[in-house]
């Protein structure tokens, strides 16, 4: 069976996870910001009731803000280049929302497309994902636009849900999840299906009406040169908060870093909202003004990525909406396209 009763509460479950010896990543408050960090005690962990979603997504556990790709040492004319192996530690990420779990499946497509990025892929292989279904949403959420629900299982190995008595239970989704659940202290397999509380269907009703993504895509197909982009991006500051908090944004830069004769070549997060992102060394810039950069963001999310991977580059987590300093809401912009 795929259902497990949890004898005690959420914190005891975290303790049980810590006892497995795996590295446990969970939402904590760090410098007043909710984000995923490695924990050593259940007391550090934010309870799922304390957050609708974390400020920073868990993508940085597979695709860090900055990471070394190779290291090198220069001695006279000689250069030694050494490969770097990603950390192989078994990891469990717990406490993330279904929209974030689904985002990993989207990123998998990119990092394993044609050329395989071992740094992302190895960490992904060594990680088990335990999501927590959403018993609340806010006005920024729009996951249902992409077929994701408050209790969607996509991308999760295990999902924690509340049953009709208000107690947490675990639903296993993958073999990896089953294996972990079967050896976890305090988890007892249930002979029968456990029914979840009705809160999830109630939450679903409160989430913003699903976007008509097919219609939006066909509008985008025909309106690359529309005045819409100038109009709707006029207030965009190009700060890229949206891209840095997004669980699916994956643009990066490659830069060298030297300390005396030793150095690293690093992969650092970058964002399409920055002017230098596409600037040629000649000075020519194909996306020289903010409206072109904002258009790139919307097009990539709703058109370009879907054309290649058959999946939009958005899971409706709402982070970009909550963080935007000028209240530019991608849900509103996408809805406005088809009415323009």
């Amino acid at each position, binding site marked *: 069976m795929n259902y497990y009763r949890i004898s005690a509460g959420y914190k005891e479950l975290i303790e049980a996870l810590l006892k497995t010896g795996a590295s446990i990543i969970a939402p904590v408050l760090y410098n007043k910001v909710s984000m995923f960090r490695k924990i050593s005690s259940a007391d550090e962990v934010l309870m799922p009731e304390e957050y609708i979603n974390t400020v920073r997504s868990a993508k940085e556990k597979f695709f860090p803000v900055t990471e070394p790709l190779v290291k090198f040492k220069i001695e006279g004319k000689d250069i030694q280049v050494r490969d770097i192996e990603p950390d192989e530690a078994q990891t469990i990420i717990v406490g993330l929302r279904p929209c974030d779990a689904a985002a990993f499946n989207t990123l998998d497509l990119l990092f394993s497309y*044609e*050329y395989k990025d071992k740094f992302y892929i190895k960490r992904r292989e060594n990680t088990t994902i335990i999501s927590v279904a959403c018993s609340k949403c806010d006005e920024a959420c729009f996951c249902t636009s992409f077929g994701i629900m408050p209790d969607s299982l996509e991308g999760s190995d295990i999902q924690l849900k509340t049953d009709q008595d208000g107690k947490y239970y675990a639903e296993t989704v993958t073999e990896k999840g089953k294996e972990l659940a079967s050896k976890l202290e305090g988890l007892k397999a249930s002979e029968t299906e456990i029914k979840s509380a009705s809160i999830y269907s109630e939450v679903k009703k409160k989430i913003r009406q699903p976007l008509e993504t097919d219609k939006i895509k066909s509008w985008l197909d025909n309106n690359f040169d529309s005045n819409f982009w100038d109009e709707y991006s006029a207030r965009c500051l190009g700060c890229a908060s949206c891209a840095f908090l997004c669980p699916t944004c994956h*643009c*990066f830069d490659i830069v060298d870093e030297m300390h005396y004769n030793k*150095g690293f070549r690093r992969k650092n997060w970058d964002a*399409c909202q920055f002017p230098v992102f596409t600037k040629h060394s000649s000075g020519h810039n194909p996306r020289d003004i903010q409206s072109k950069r904002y258009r790139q963001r919307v097009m990539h999310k709703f058109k370009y990525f879907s054309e290649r991977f058959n999946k939009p580059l958005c899971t409706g987590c709402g982070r970009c909406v909550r963080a935007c300093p000028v209240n530019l809401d991608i849900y509103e912009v996408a809805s406005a396209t088809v009415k323009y």
Partner: protein
Amino acid sequence: MENIYKPFITHVEEVRWETADTKTFKLVFDDPRLADEFTFKAGQFAEYSVFGEGESTFCIASSPTRKGYIECSFKVVGKVTNALKKLDKGDKVGFRGPYGNSFPIEEMVGKNLIFVGGGIGLAPLRSLIWNCLDLRDQFKDITVLAGARSVGDLVYKNELALWAERSDMKLVQTVDPGGETADWKGEVGFVPTILDKMNPSSENAIAITCGPPIMIKFVLQNLQKAGFAPEQIITTLENRMKCGLGKCGRCNIGGTYVCIDGPVFSAAQLNELPNDF
């Protein structure tokens, strides 16, 4: 699993100044087995690096028919190219590649070929020109139109001299008005204007062009005026790149990634792309 970001190590075998600000390196892989096994196709590009400074994207400017080494030409403009400039014989250069698609040389067999290059845009064409010259009997007439802003800005001068002497090809050289010197024997005029004057026949022909965006724009127009169908015109694009692997997200024109879907496109394919160059 292989590290797709790890460069091979090459060393500079030869250095040549092409112009006051453009240099060509002949690079040889340090690993002799790799030097033997390495293959690429004309039109492909690579990431070249100076350790501690970073990576830069250029085409492979030598011909795949010339084995055991690769050549690249670069203009000194930014951080990496300024660091490359300082390298000399024996110095190390990182190399990742070859990446991207290539010129459709199989489709060019048995055809008349017209190459139109402007400035450093001659570099990717040079790879293909030597490739075709090394297999000369497979192609019909070969014409090269090479232009630059001034006589001093013409790249590959030694090779232009070799091509000018060959009887199995035709070379036309031009410089922009005002860029000529007293002893200049070539044409004076912008590349598209000279192309117009040459009025090449589109019959059984393929035109291949590369140069600054403004030159490409008018060359495409003039070729179509001369009767070339968009499918008969091939060009190679460049955009700022970092990974070269279709991941870092900056070289796309619409949904098309120059790094993995290009850099070589036909004019017919370009017509399908949004105005995002």
